[in-house]
């Protein structure tokens, strides 16, 4: 079985993220990392291969030079190879362009299973997996809280607001997994050393047969007009409970007409 896992390199959510002058996410100002939500995708791919007793995992990322670190991190957890789509013309690409590029890169892999995270922690749109399924004509089994593969059938559970749904499809298929699928493993020292020797292929837009004019900021289907830092919320009154904390809170709610 051949699995492609999509991993994104994102600015660390724990740091002070900001926008660059052109209103794109500033990817240089703060440390980047493999999106935590894509670690769940890596883990699920490794588990599918463990259970099947065979399989090959390739990680795919699109992003600037530093995005290679996301591939190395994933490779240190396990798996076999990386593909990095790297091209200056990609700067400022929106979800439509990103999905176009990733779809072309996936097509080269003849994958049985494509696994994505539920959302990137920077853009948080949660649309790329659905766009990829649409572009590739693959069954899209999205937002899985659990995933299993038996022979050539993939099955997920999807926990919605009103119901928990089981979805089944034949391979090849695309799955996105949530943080409900279970904690990702930590890379071992051996894994980190092994990752350094695993092959990573770098692809340009030309390699994928995509014109630079189809992607990037100038080709984006939408434009950001302004970005404004929200004024930090001002801390209000804090009281220490001396047996009447609930009463004081009720007073506050009454003053503000909630009761």
């Amino acid at each position, binding site marked *: 079985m051949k699995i492609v896992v999509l991993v994104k390199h994102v600015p660390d959510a724990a740091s002070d993220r900001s926008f660059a002058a052109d209103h794109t996410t500033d990817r240089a100002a703060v440390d980047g990392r493999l999106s935590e939500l894509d670690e769940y995708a890596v883990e699920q791919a490794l588990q599918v291969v463990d259970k099947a007793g065979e399989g090959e995992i390739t990680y795919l990322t699109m992003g600037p030079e530093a995005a290679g670190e996301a591939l190395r991190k994933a490779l240190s957890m396990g798996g076999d190879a990386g593909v990095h789509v790297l091209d200056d013309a990609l700067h400022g690409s929106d979800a439509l362009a990103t999905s176009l590029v990733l779809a072309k890169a996936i097509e080269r892999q003849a994958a049985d299973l494509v696994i994505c995270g539920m959302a990137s922690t920077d853009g948080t749109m949660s649309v790329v997996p659905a766009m990829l399924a649409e572009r590739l004509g693959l069954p899209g089994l*999205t937002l899985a809280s659990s995933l299993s593969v038996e022979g050539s059938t993939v099955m997920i559970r999807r*926990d919605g607001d009103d119901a928990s749904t089981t*979805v089944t499809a034949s391979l090849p298929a695309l799955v996105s997994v949530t943080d409900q699928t279970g904690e990702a493993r930590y890379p071992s020292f051996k894994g980190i050393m092994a990752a350094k020797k695993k092959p990573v292929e770098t692809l340009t837009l030309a390699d994928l047969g995509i014109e630079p004019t189809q992607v990037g900021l100038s080709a984006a289907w939408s434009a950001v007009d*302004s970005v404004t830092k929200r004024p930090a919320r001002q801390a209000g009154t804090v009281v220490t409970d001396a047996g*009447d904390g*609930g009463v004081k809170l009720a007073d506050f709610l009454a003053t503000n007409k909630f009761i």
Partner: protein
Amino acid sequence: MGEVLVLVDHVDGVVRKTTTELLTIARRLGAPSAVFFGSGVEAATATLAAFGAAKVYVVDAPELADYLVAPKAEALVAVAQLASPSAILVTSSAEGKEIAARAAVRLGSGLITDAVDVDADGVTTQSAFAASYVVTARVTSGTPVITVKPNSAAPEQSPAAATIENVTVSFSAAATSAKITDVAPRAKSGRPELTEAAIVVSGGRGVGGAEGFGVVEALADALGAAVGASRAATDAGWYPHAFQVGQTGKTVSPQLYIANGISGAIQHRAGMQTSKTIVAVNKDSDAPIFELADFGVVGDLFAVVPQLTDEVTKRKG
């Protein structure tokens, strides 16, 4: 003014409040038409008419319920090709965003997700980076496809005809390949919808266990509020995941948010930071949640919250 499509969010024909908000927003952009999937349109027409839908396009086909998401996207695209709308609005739910994403690819349209406002020129307002930024944007190419969060507008009535127009769609093989093989409905809590509620009362790790959520629920019921939870609480299995607030749960923006035994991690804040008023009860005075609370009580939630519940009940008389 062009036609603006609003995808109806409904349960067996009962139209969700978010749809009336979307119809209200759609009137700023043009003449709204509703797009209704499944059965039960008879029950929905009165509401759709009251909030300004001139037409109601209905697609009722078994594929919509038998397969995951993709048929709904194809149906929306089919209606869009028929109506040539000037914009398409969809509720920003997990499913809504996927429908919008697929439709945008098919239509070659720009997509904006999670808008909290859309003005008459189609300029959207969104939050970014765990609600620490406000971003305005607009679609520059194709028919704008915009997903809008619940609570983004006050629904206003404006009667229209709501003329039914049935649309037949033939679904592609690709759209009918992810089959729904089992549906286990969730028990209803009887409380307001988490993302729509005016008041949300949440519990975190400090609640200590599933039984501990009793005090949170009691306060919620006294206030007529929805119940929320932190990921620590849902991961521990104390409360269902559907009620998780935060980056990988729901985003809420109520008038009042009460956080009990929640530290205020960035991923939790991402889901509640834009609440109008924030109240926190936490026994640790250094908990980051107090940095955003309008009113905070440092204390044991098992003492403070029941006392508050009693007071609320008393004062509401």
